[in-house]
């Protein structure tokens, strides 16, 4: 029998200290574009937020449900393509409709895939995510007429950002788009945290810790795994919509296996099963990637090496490093 994925729960619930920290962090990020007007840094942080949302969604699946998806970026890609195509072909100005269409289409694709995947065990689940991910990548890559193939989807219009008919700004403006991303990512984080701290989240963790016991006490394991999968894919869909709005472009490399390994590394860097850890992990990853890829073309050697070293020596990520030092201080 396979050994279970065990992750200690260090979360003591909501404390005043935590609320203050989150508020300060969000306020700081919101003020950022007013302090630093350099477009490069604004887009860098924007990308960190979007990939943070994607890494967080993978954490729901891997860190909380114990299911491994090698190519979670596929669902970001599907949503981004759908939102882009919606804005190009159907309506260039309906931002919210496009966003909803992206998430709904991603769910429609993810549902049968998830239905098939949860019928299998841990290893087969992981292999299937790889097979389906490669399949989506191949389809997007080869369907030149619709997706633009290798060239990617270009010329995506920038709709105005409106709330109940009130125009707030234009999604083509980096600072406005950044604030929009920040609001959506913050909302998604709070919502996901609420879901994960609910009895539903406890069931997911029970499945991760011991699937047989969860089944013995009457939990429909397959159904809950499917719920976890759908939640993760819908969050990835939101990240995909933000991705295409911010970049205005998407190519098949975003959906490649290599990019999928990057998302896994973000989760590992931050710490499995912590939800906020992967957000930090994504920020570190995007920063390092940006820094290293200007120096070397053999980025994958370093990516692979860091993944191996993380699994071997720091499987709990940087969050785990924090509690390690705390323990060290007590002794």
């Amino acid at each position, binding site marked *: 029998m396979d050994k279970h994925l065990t992750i200690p729960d260090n979360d003591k619930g909501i404390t005043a200290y935590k609320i203050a920290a989150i508020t300060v962090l969000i306020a700081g990020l919101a003020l950022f574009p007013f302090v630093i007007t350099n477009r490069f840094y604004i887009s860098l942080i924007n990308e960190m937020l979007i990939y943070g949302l994607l890494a967080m969604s993978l954490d729901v699946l891997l860190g909380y449900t114990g299911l491994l998806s090698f190519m979670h970026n596929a669902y970001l890609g599907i949503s981004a393509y759908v939102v882009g195509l919606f804005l190009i072909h159907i309506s260039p100005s309906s931002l919210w409709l496009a966003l909803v269409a992206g998430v709904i289409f991603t769910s429609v694709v993810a549902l049968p895939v998830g239905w098939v995947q949860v019928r299998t065990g841990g290893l087969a689940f992981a292999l299937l995510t790889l097979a389906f991910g490669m399949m989506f990548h191949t389809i997007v890559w080869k369907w030149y007429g619709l997706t633009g193939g290798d060239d990617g989807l270009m010329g995506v219009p920038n709709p105005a950002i409106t709330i109940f008919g009130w125009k707030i700004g234009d999604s083509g403006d980096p600072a406005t788009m950044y604030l929009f991303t920040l609001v959506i990512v913050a909302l998604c984080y709070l919502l996901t945290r609420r879901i994960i701290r609910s009895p539903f989240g406890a069931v997911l963790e029970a499945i991760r810790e011991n699937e047989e016991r969860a089944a013995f006490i009457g939990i429909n394991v397959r159904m809950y795994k499917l719920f976890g999968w759908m939640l993760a894919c819908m969050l990835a869909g939101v990240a995909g919509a933000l991705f295409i709005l911010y970049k205005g472009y998407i190519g098949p490399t975003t959906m490649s296996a290599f990019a999928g390994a990057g998302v896994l590394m973000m989760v590992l860097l931050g710490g499995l099963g912590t939800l906020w850890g992967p957000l930090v992990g994504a920020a570190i990853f995007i920063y390092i990637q940006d820094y290293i890829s200007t120096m070397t073309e053999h980025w994958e050697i370093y*990516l692979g090496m860091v993944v191996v070293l993380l699994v071997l020596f720091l499987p709990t990520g940087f969050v785990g490093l924090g509690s390690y030092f705390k323990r060290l201080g007590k002794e």
Partner: protein
Amino acid sequence: MGGALSTSVDITLNSLVLGGVFLIVATGLNIIYGLSRVMNLAHGSLYAIGAYAGYTLTTIGFNYFAAIVIAPVLVAAVGLLLERTIISPMRKRSMVYTLILTYGLMFFLDGLIKQSWGNEPRFVELPAMIKSTIPILGSHYPVFRLVTLFIIAGVMTGLMLFLNKTKIGIILRAASTIPEMVSCLGINMKHVHIGAFVLGCALAGIAGTIAGPLTTIDPLMGHEMLISSFVVIVIGGLGSLRGAVFAALLIGAVQTLAEFFITDLAMVIVYMLMAVILAFMPRGLLGEGRFE
């Protein structure tokens, strides 16, 4: 180009050769998983290293047949190094970590391949004696492909004899069924794990070396082979040798036919097939595998 007969001869023989390569890679993967419960996602990269090693050996003056013997030994040495340093500590951990680790290892090895040999495709120079073609039923079939077919048959026969007739082979087979019992009989399971991993890597190396002249050698060849050999062991049933033979020939035929007729959607069909089998026949087509 000949008529329908010669085309079908080409397709049949090409399917057998391709299926044979899949079979050797998938058997290596099967042996490693069966004995030590490690699903090695870097297996395709070891196959690519085998191909590049064969290429380098032939360019520095070794005979092609000598390269087929030396390159797998080099890959097996790489396997031994990997097993001792990073794979063995993973045995005590959840499978999720093993999968992530070997996935990272795959990108690391691929990156090393790109750095050492570059991105451009390479071609293996064959010895003059097997460069010609031979007429079979109207088709001019390359001799070296037939030679490759004989090598594949030889390797698989040798492996069967090793697993069924020698003492070490019997211990390996016993350890894949009831490891606790083998351990109780005084066999050091650590050695069994090392042996299985090194044997699996050597098989990947052999497959890579003989596949080199069949196609062009490029850094992505390992990825494609990894996916194809997964499909083979999934369809044949994880851990089933008989099933793998059957599945390898099937996938070899599907991919060869697809290369002749439809190219773009061939892999999509293969992925779909794998998904359907995994979901509805998790023990493989012959029902002999065991997925946990």
